[in-house]
């Protein structure tokens, strides 16, 4: 009996490279925004791409959405090449990009959706039914005829989400979907993505974020991306397990202490520090926090008053810091490698 | 704010505006060359309708049959005037576009002080460009010659004209805080001036345009300037015209200031200052 061939994965990215030229004239330099990214999403997976600002997440998403042409590598959506068969791929992809201005703010939600429906070939009653359904689903019924310029950020994001799924795509690309939203809307968006789109409708979703808890809550697997490279791809539990016996010592103190002596302590694996409003929050990653606690306190006391101490189990953010040496809150857009 | 502090802000605004202006060198070259090109259709039209050189009908209307010189002088003066409209009138809109308008309004400096800085910069740059154009044109065989005896009264008239026009431009700048979409309105204003003042043609040819043109300072200035340059008139009633222009300037400057203040306050009340 012949084998039934397994369906092509929803998304297959192989060794994608994307460079950008920056600067003017003779001062132009080439930076590598995506550096050999490889990942495969089986159908129905909710996959996360987690990394700090400037890591290359948006660039990779735009390559998949056929808005950018990669300089090397291949991208296949449901087995079709995104460059050679771009029309097919665009029909299968729903895209939500970050940013306030991605809709016609002088038009209503319904007018916006009517227009985009036409671009995806939705017509007549099927279009109207689909838009009615999405407006109901996303709680936009009361405002559907008002101009978008009067909407809050959260409501605009709902309309963006409606546009992304208007044509019932197989693969949904969500680039920082809850960026800049208040907690209530952010919670709604996340719940919608997980429960409605992924669990109920079985959509394959690639979600990019720099919010650790969002990735942890939503994603079945997560890729860490930093400085254009995909560092690792695992489930959240696997990431946390892979830092055995590691704890995070969180200390808040006044001023900006010198962290070099702390880094040099035996048993300290990583340090991240954030200075804000005159207070430094130091995160010291060590197999057992209490073995370094007293020495760390001694070093810090010289520099200023200690305001608080806590020992925590690692979160994904700590895992990211441990694996990459970079904090998720950092801006790495200027740290991308230059290509000679 | 003290006078010294105000002067410092004006200087800072001038430096900033000049730096931004010169970061687009292509634009400077464009404005130096193309306004002269825009008069060519009129020159060819003249050649087609009455042949090259002179028009008897023009002679009757304006005192000179040299329609080419008529058009060129109108072009130079209007270039001066409209660059002020674009530069000053549009300038605050550009601040809104860059996202800096709210920060200007939030500062202790009145936006009008910023406008003064922009106005002075615009005047300086445009003067240089028009001077270059005038020099080039004087070498061409259009019967336009500039002497010191002609240039000085022309400069006086242009200076008085621009004073009033900047008052108008300041009022317009206030409107741009409300209108948001400005370019179309600036073009419309330009074309209204082209229609109702003797930039492109002698407005006496039509009763309506002749009447309306008397309300526009540009009309008075252009008639006098052409009289000086084309007709070599020593006595164009320059002091009378200067007086008329001064009167109009007073009205336009005061009116422009009051309009701007009222509109700026309105946008702050409506909460639309930073809106693009």
């Amino acid at each position, binding site marked *: 009996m012949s084998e039934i061939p397994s369906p092509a994965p929803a998304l297959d990215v192989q060794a994608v490279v*994307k460079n*950008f*030229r920056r600067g003017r004239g003779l001062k132009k330099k080439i930076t590598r*925004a995506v550096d050999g990214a490889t990942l495969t999403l089986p159908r129905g997976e909710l996959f996360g791409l987690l990394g700090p600002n400037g890591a290359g997440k948006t*660039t990779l998403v*735009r390559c998949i*959405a056929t*808005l*950018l*042409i990669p300089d090397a590598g291949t991208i296949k959506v449901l087995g079709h090449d995104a460059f050679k068969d771009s*029309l097919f791929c665009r*029909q299968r992809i729903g895209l939500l*990009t970050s940013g306030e201005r991605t809709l*016609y703010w*002088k*038009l209503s939600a319904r*007018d916006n959706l009517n*227009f*985009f*429906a*036409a*671009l995806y*070939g939705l017509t007549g009653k099927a279009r109207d*039914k689909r838009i009615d*359904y999405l407006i109901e*689903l996303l709680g936009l019924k009361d405002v559907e005829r008002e101009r978008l310029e009067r909407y809050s950020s959260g409501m605009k994001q709902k309309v963006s989400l409606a546009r992304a799924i208007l*044509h*019932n*795509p197989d693969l949904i690309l969500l680039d920082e979907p809850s960026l800049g939203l208040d907690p209530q809307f952010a919670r709604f968006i996340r719940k919608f993505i*997980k*429960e*409605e789109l992924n669990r*109920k409708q079985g959509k394959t979703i690639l979600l990019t974020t720099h919010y650790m808890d969002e990735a942890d*809550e*939503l994603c079945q697997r997560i890729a860490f991306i930093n400085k254009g490279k995909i560092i690792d791809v695992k489930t*959240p539990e696997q990431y946390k397990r892979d830092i055995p016996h590691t704890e995070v010592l969180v200390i808040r103190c006044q001023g900006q202490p010198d962290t070099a002596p702390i880094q040099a302590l035996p048993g300290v694996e990583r340090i991240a520090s954030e200075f804000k409003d005159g207070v430094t929050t130091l995160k010291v990653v060590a197999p057992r926090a209490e073995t370094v606690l007293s020495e760390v306190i001694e070093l810090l006391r010289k520099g200023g008053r200690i305001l608080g101490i806590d020992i925590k189990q690692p979160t994904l953010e700590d895992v990211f810091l441990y694996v990459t040496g970079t904090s998720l809150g950092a801006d790495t857009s200027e740290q991308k490698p230059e290509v000679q | 704010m003290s006078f010294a502090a105000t002067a410092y802000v004006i200087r800072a605004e001038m430096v900033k505006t000049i730096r931004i202006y010169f970061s*687009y060198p*292509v634009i400077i070259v*464009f404005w130096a060359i*193309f306004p002269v*090109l825009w008069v*060519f*259709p*009129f020159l*060819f*039209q003249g*050649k*087609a309708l009455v042949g090259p050189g002179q*028009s*008897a009908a*023009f002679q009757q209307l304006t005192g000179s049959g040299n*329609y080419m010189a008529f058009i060129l002088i109108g072009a130079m003066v209007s270039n001066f005037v409209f660059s002020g409209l674009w530069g000053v009138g549009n300038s605050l809109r550009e601040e809104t576009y860059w996202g800096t308008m709210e920060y200007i309004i939030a500062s202790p400096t009145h936006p009008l002080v910023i406008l003064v800085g922009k106005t002075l910069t615009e005047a300086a740059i445009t003067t240089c460009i028009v001077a270059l154009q005038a020099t080039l044109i004087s070498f061409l065989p259009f019967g336009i010659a500039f002497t010191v005896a002609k240039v000085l009264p022309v400069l006086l008239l242009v200076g008085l004209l621009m004073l009033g026009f900047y008052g108008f431009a300041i009022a317009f700048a206030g409107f741009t805080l409300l209108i948001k979409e400005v370019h*179309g*309105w600036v073009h*419309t204003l330009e*074309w209204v001036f*082209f*229609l109702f003042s003797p930039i492109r*043609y002698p407005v006496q*040819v039509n009763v309506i345009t002749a009447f309306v043109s008397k309300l526009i300072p540009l009309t008075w200035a252009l008639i006098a300037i052409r009289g000086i340059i084309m007709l070599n008139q020593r006595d164009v009633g320059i002091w009378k015209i200067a007086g008329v222009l001064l009167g109009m300037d007073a009205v336009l400057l005061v009116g422009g200031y009051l309009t701007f203040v009222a509109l700026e306050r309105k946008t702050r009340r409506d909460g639309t200052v930073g809106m693009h």
Partner: protein
Amino acid sequence: MAEGSRVQGFKGSGTRTPEPRNPRTLPLARLRHYALAVWAENIKEWKLELTYPLDFLRSLIDPVVYLLPYVLYGIALVGGRYSPNLQKLVGTSDIVSFITIGYVFIGFMNMALWAMGFSLRKEQMYGTLEAVFAAPVPRWVFTMGMSMHSILHQFLMIAVQLIFITAVFSLKVNPAGLLPSLAMIGLMLVALYGIGMIMASTTLIFKQGWLISEALGSLLMVVTPIAYPLAVLPVFMQKTALTVPTTYGILAARHFLLGEQMGFSVGTAFLRVAVLCVAWVVFGLVVFALIDRYTRRSGTLSHY
């Protein structure tokens, strides 16, 4: 994965949704899809334009205000409506009708340079260009939709212009020349679409794209025989004028409506415009495709 509590389904969920369309369907179905997208783009532009009613009204009045100085200048030069010099040159002396027809046609050229030319730049300004380009329709569909809006808008402006000139000056044209003029306009618009595509794509990569439109428009205003016959232009300008579709549009329309002598036959005029159609459209599509690829390689699509 952190397990959230079991949540209720969203209201309205579970409705059957249409299957995604496969773009590789029968050509007719695909054409229908593209036609729908073109129409939707056109409607969207009208809706956006009409949210600024004052600007819309102004845009209809502008062409009249723009045209009048040229007409009045002509009258001032000649001392009346009829020019013996013009009669000698082209066989017609009515300067009002002569100039009006010229400026009606140059409006189409400006439309290609500005309205069509800035269509994609507008989408960039809205912030919607990426969303629109991510849709499964070829790029030319969007420019065609925006061109449709521009052309309809242009016809509205022309109607206002002609009504005004007829009311104030009376337009003296040969009614039998209307149909062949419209045929020439149709051909000319196809060629202008190609020019519009070039302008649209250049505005995507040049931040000061308006400079290119302004410069090109200024040059074309000079070489195109708007308010004067081709014969008054220097020879090199005449040759340049003959590569521009609007030249033939203007000359042919004035020939049909006023009896102007063109210097070549009607058949030759139509043939040349047809050739220009093919040339400009092909050139426009090629330039557009190249620049589209460039912006997708360089990542500047969303930059405004």
